[in-house]
């Protein structure tokens, strides 16, 4: 799958949306399509929110221009020409009837958007996401004979079927937001919130933390991948398995270093003695698209860079830098992690 798939519009209402989006983009002069854009909706909820935004923004702008125009007219037009502005009819029509009609339309519209958005669906895929400074713990609970597993900084969902994400926080308040797929939901310590949505077109999107949560708040993102059902099931089956055994001496050396350095006191690698629950589960870290909560593409080079310079890359993050590995050690450790597909 490549980024192109995310650019294809929803089959429904595609032309209207595309044209409207193009217009909005022309207005804002910003790139609007892409992996993290509320202006490029990839699901029904995001589409409803998008239309609400569009209508409110364009409507508000038009009314603002109208009122400003009338105001300027009232100030600069000669008295005999502007006299009608002070008449009873103008006040009744412009000051009473117009706002009442506009608001009487917007209120039910807003309520209907509210009613139809974030609706829990029977049979939805359940996922639990816990916000932590500064990453996302993602749990797929046991379901219909499939066992539970954890991953981090990625949410993989089947396309076209409803998902309910249950969120909370392990420390401070975070907020879970996938602009292309729906609205935001706060992650509050000691409280459980839910957000339901459906990804309607396959693709790769990005979620972000939308509530300032500390120094590295801006580096707290996650990948969202909407896969076809069969690909999703294959992913899920692979994630359920314990970590791959290293099949090369180089990789075994990496695993020994992982053990010796005590990485396992914070990280789980299922199938090994590493069972620390503090940091992200690394059982299948090699299968993720990115590392460090969306900071780098995932490869041996960035993994090695992360391990050696954690505090330089994300200062204040709750993993120490391991600057004392030799180059060769770092490469084998990174290669071991990368092999954990």
């Amino acid at each position, binding site marked *: 799958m490549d980024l192109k798939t995310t650019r294809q519009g929803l089959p429904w209402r595609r032309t209207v949306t595309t044209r409207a989006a193009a217009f909005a983009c022309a207005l804002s002069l910003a790139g609007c399509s892409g992996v993290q854009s509320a202006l490029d909706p990839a699901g029904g909820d995001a589409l409803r929110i998008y239309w609400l935004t569009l209508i409110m923004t364009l409507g508000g702008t038009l009314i603002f221009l109208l009122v400003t125009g009338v105001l300027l007219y009232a100030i600069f037009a000669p008295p005999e020409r502007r006299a009608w502005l002070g008449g009873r009819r103008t006040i009744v029509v412009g000051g*009473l009837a117009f706002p*009442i009609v506009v*608001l*009487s339309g917007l*209120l*039910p519209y807003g*309520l*209907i958007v*509210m*009613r139809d958005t974030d609706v829990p669906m029977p049979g939805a895929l359940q996922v639990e996401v816990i916000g932590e400074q500064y990453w996302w713990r993602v749990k797929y609970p046991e379901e219909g004979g499939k066992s539970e597993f954890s991953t981090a900084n990625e949410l993989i969902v089947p396309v076209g079927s409803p998902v309910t994400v249950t969120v909370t926080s392990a420390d401070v308040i975070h907020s879970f937001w996938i602009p292309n797929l729906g609205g935001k939901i706060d992650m509050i310590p000691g409280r459980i919130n839910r957000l339901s949505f459906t990804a309607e077109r396959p693709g790769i999107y990005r979620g972000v933390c939308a509530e300032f949560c500390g120094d590295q708040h801006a580096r707290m993102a996650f990948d969202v991948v909407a896969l076809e059902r069969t690909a999703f099931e294959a992913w899920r089956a692979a994630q359920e398995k314990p970590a791959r055994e290293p099949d090369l001496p180089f990789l075994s050396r990496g695993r020994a270093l992982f053990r010796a350095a005590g990485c396992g006191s914070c990280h789980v690698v299922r199938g090994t003695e590493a069972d620390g629950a503090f940091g992200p589960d690394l059982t299948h870290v090699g299968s993720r698209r990115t590392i460090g909560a969306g900071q780098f593409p995932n490869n041996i080079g960035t993994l090695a860079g992360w391990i050696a310079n954690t505090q330089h890359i994300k200062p204040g993050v709750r993993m120490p830098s391991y600057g004392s590995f030799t180059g060769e050690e770092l490469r084998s450790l990174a290669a071991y992690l990368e092999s954990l597909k």
Partner: protein
Amino acid sequence: MSGRRTGQVLLMLAGLIAWAVQFTVIYGVTSTLCGREWADVTLLGVGIVHAVVALATLAALIVAALSFLGSWRIHGGLGETAAAPDRFISQAGILISGLSLVVILWQGIPAFILPACA
């Protein structure tokens, strides 16, 4: 303020007062019922929250409508020689109760669109 003036002012403000009461009842009752998980109770087949909202809205609408008609009648009955305050109060009464009718309706609309404890 004479008794007559007090009555006039009350009539003028009746719509607003009805709105305030409706507002308090709707918010208070909805959060109490939903918070205590009594929301499933039904009244004549209608969910209790929706029933309360509908009744409070209806009652407030009736009060505001009476205030509107009353102010309208008084305004229409004023002669050429009526005192300026009488004219003003009855006119303001028409406007205030008319607007109250609109906001009371708006306030009740969510009950017809949203589920009770969403």
